[in-house]
């Protein structure tokens, strides 16, 4: 077992070390023997799904909730979306509610699964908290809830329930902030320079989304507080990620789609500052342009993503959320700066995000096998860490 634990085969998006359930260890840990191993693990109970489930699945909820928000924003009367508005307004409001409900159901299902996993597989959850990629995805359910709250057609922002829900969703974010940001500069094994990777930007996005919703509710101070938390750590993280220390090179090739998070963070910051300062001023524009530039930079490098595109996996869902947030920011930009180019930009980006999300849904429906996990990514990692020290 010891020699297997030391072999990190990074072709899979998990760290594919033989699971505890397998007595005959397939030491390569690749997914090539999926049928045989799936049959082996299928023989164990359904609880093994819980073991293999991880917080990365919340990417799906992130994508769907942000889509709901995008549709809501496009349908707003203030949006001057010439070509889009005619399409968007013909779609009955029933469709928006349907989309919102689907997003809510998906999110609730995933949360339920994760809760059950917490109770029954607590060791896995602890291992996940310790993992440099997994710990960031603990922010994802709260971000999804906040976006759903923003997109809800049932509540208005000045409603009391709305505010209570905001508090309920933001407090976990702040708690996680204290834990993870504190680790960055105090804890021995988890310095920022060692653990920084593109998924760390989800922590920043969490703060910024909280600030965005708070500003829309009218709570300016809380909004500015969360915004400053987010933007400061974003600055530090941006520099660190660009420097690409050797220690931070631990992202497996299958997880390359998370590079799109580089686009999401400045766009979210732009949206947040827009709602705090009530106008799309120069700072917002600069953040939006930065994310546009990063989008162009990533899109012009298809070779970076080639390896991860060979097999469908839940990591592909990482493409959708950043594109949607970029489209949202483009919508705000077009509202403020009237003109042909901003509108075209908004049109193109919105269409792109819708197409990508639809494609991902189709893929998920067709390849459900692939999306379910095959390995327990965290337990054995924990054991490996425990025994290797």
């Amino acid at each position, binding site marked *: 077992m010891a020699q297997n634990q030391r072999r990190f085969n990074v072709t899979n998006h998990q760290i594919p070390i033989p699971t505890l359930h397998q007595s005959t260890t397939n030491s390569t840990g690749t997914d090539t023997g999926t049928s045989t191993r799936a049959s082996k693990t299928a023989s164990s109970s359904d609880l093994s799904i819980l073991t293999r489930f991880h917080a990365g699945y919340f990417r799906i909820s992130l994508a769907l909730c942000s889509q709901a928000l995008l549709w809501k924003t496009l349908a707003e009367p203030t949006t001057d979306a010439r070509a889009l508005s005619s399409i968007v307004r013909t779609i009955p409001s029933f469709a928006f509610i349907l989309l919102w409900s689907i997003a809510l159901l998906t999110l609730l299902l995933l949360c339920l699964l994760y809760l059950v996993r917490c109770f029954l597989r607590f060791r896995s959850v602890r291992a996940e908290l310790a993992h440099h990629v997994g710990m960031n995805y603990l922010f994802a359910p709260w971000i999804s809830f906040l976006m759903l709250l923003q997109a809800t057609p049932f509540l208005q922002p000045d409603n009391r329930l709305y505010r209570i829900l905001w508090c309920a969703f933001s407090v976990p974010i702040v708690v996680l902030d204290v834990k993870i940001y504190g680790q960055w500069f105090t804890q021995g094994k988890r310095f920022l320079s060692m653990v920084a990777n593109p998924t760390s930007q989800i922590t920043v996005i969490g703060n910024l989304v909280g600030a965005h919703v708070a500003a829309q509710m009218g709570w300016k101070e809380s909004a500015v507080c969360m915004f400053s938390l987010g933007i400061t750590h974003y600055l530090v993280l941006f520099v660190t990620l660009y420097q*690409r220390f*050797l220690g931070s090179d631990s992202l497996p090739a299958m997880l390359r789609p998370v*590079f799109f998070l*580089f686009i999401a963070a400045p766009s979210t910051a732009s949206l947040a500052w827009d709602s705090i300062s009530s106008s799309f001023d120069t700072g917002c524009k600069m953040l939006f*342009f*930065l994310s546009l530039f990063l989008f162009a*930079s*990533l899109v012009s490098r298809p070779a*970076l993503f080639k390896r991860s595109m060979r097999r469908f996996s839940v990591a592909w869902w990482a493409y959708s959320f950043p594109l949607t947030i970029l489209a949202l920011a483009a919508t705000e930009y077009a509202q403020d*700066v009237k003109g042909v180019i901003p509108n075209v930009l908004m049109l193109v980006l919105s269409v792109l995000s819708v197409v990508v999300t639809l494609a991902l849904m189709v893929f998920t429906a067709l390849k459900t096998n692939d999306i379910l996990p095959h390995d327990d990514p965290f337990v054995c990692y924990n054991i490996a860490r425990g025994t290797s020290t």
Partner: protein
Amino acid sequence: MEQTELQVEIPSVLKQTSCQNIKGFDCVDYGNGNNPNPLENAISDKESYGESIAGSKITKLELQEVVIISLPASPSGLHIGQTKLVLHSEKCENTDQNDTKNPYPQLAKQKKFHSQPILVRENGDRKVVHSEAIRDHRFDPFKTWSGRLERQISNLRGKATQEPDIEAGASERDEIEEAPGVDRYFDALEGPELDTLRATEVSVLPEDEKWPFLLRFPVNAFGICLGVSSQAILWKTLNTSPAMSFLHISPMPNLILWWAALALILFVSFVYLLKIVFYFEAVKREYHHPVRVNFFFAPWIACMFMALAVPPSIAVNLRPFIWYILMTPIFILELKIYGQWMSGGQRRLSKVANPSNHLSIVGNFVGALLGANMGLKEGPIFFFAVGLAHYIVLFVTLYQRLPTNAALPKELHPVFFLFVAAPSVACMAWAKIQGDFDYAARIPYFIALFLYMSLAVRVNFFTGIRFSLAWWAYTFPMTGASIATIKYTMAVTNVVTRSLSVCLSAISTFTVSTLLVYTIVHAFVLRDLFPNDISIAITRKKPKFSKMLSHFRSSSADSKDFDSSISKNSEI
């Protein structure tokens, strides 16, 4: 006439010598000289060849000596040492060296030999210039399409071609075809500009000869354009800004400098364009060099300086399409280079960060400044945002002076002046975008001033450094700081700021003039303004081939020994 005779004779000679005349030569019947074992044929029987040729030709041509050329046929390795000597007749009127080099073009083509440059020992007074032949082939891999372009062009011009399809040897060709990885540049070179070869490394090209001019013309030469055009901006600002009107500067210096800068840009661009056309491989290597790649931004920045410095008598308002044209190449280059920082495995920022990267950042700010001058709104903000974000990253990285960073010089060097460039141009750009010199513009201005001061008080550390063409690129930050000070004076006018403006402008003008004197001295008196550009001639791999290369060098040294009076071409 004799040449054609020679050529016509050759097949028959071969046929004659094929099986009958050469003793001990094992061959099957071949009609056209298809030799199954060309090497044997070539090496072992040259004397026989000589005899037979002598026998057949001497009577016809009445030569006193015989032309013997043998073609060692091995396609690999470097073969100067293996080439055979050729006796050349005094009386032979064959002045065209091309033919003597390959009297058997048909043979060469059929055998697909890699024919070698053949040395000619000169007899008597005739000096045969063959060093150019050697140099030609050695520099071929750096040329566009390995020299085939040049041969095409000389074909078109009616010159007789040299050997077709010459290859300098398969291994050397492999060495040069692909540009080295960035690790090689760091391993093989040292110095703040990564332009000095380490003692353990060898260069692919001979270090003791002067290379062709185009090969020695680095992309750093655009630094001169940067320096002169930024001076033009300075004198225009001195002339037009109302806060400096007490100096009564006339528009003449601006006009003169602008035309001088224009001429320089045209000249340097033209020469570099020639280099791209004729020595594309060398340009590719420069592009892969971690310091030189930043100078590829320099032509566009220089053009933008020209647009900023345009004298009011020539044009007042420039069209926006100029801005789009100039920013497009910068945008494309940026996408490539910043993307590499973020995602490129070998070229990550923590490894390749060096002060010359500031040139790529400054391009953004200059573009923002020019766009704002022209009245554009969104484009300048776009480039300002991109430049600011990446400037923060670069600034932090360079300040950290990471131990993994191989490129940062330990000692002080004029390249550090590039630190001053980005904040000074950024403050001007922001002031123009916002409309006035507000606090957000003053902060970068004060940072620029601080960096300038901390370098200026250490000026005595700058002595004793070898002059290079890249120093011109380091003058434009000084000028930029002066211009920013003038803009600041326009916002905050008092004695202190005015004297600061005058002082800084004087320093920058003085520096540029000194540099001009140095350049002229090096160009015309010392004639070493363009030394051999070693940094593009590093080997792709650590020299395992060093033995072969040193053999190559010693052989070429041998060949020079017995060609003692070969005159070298006087290159530029």
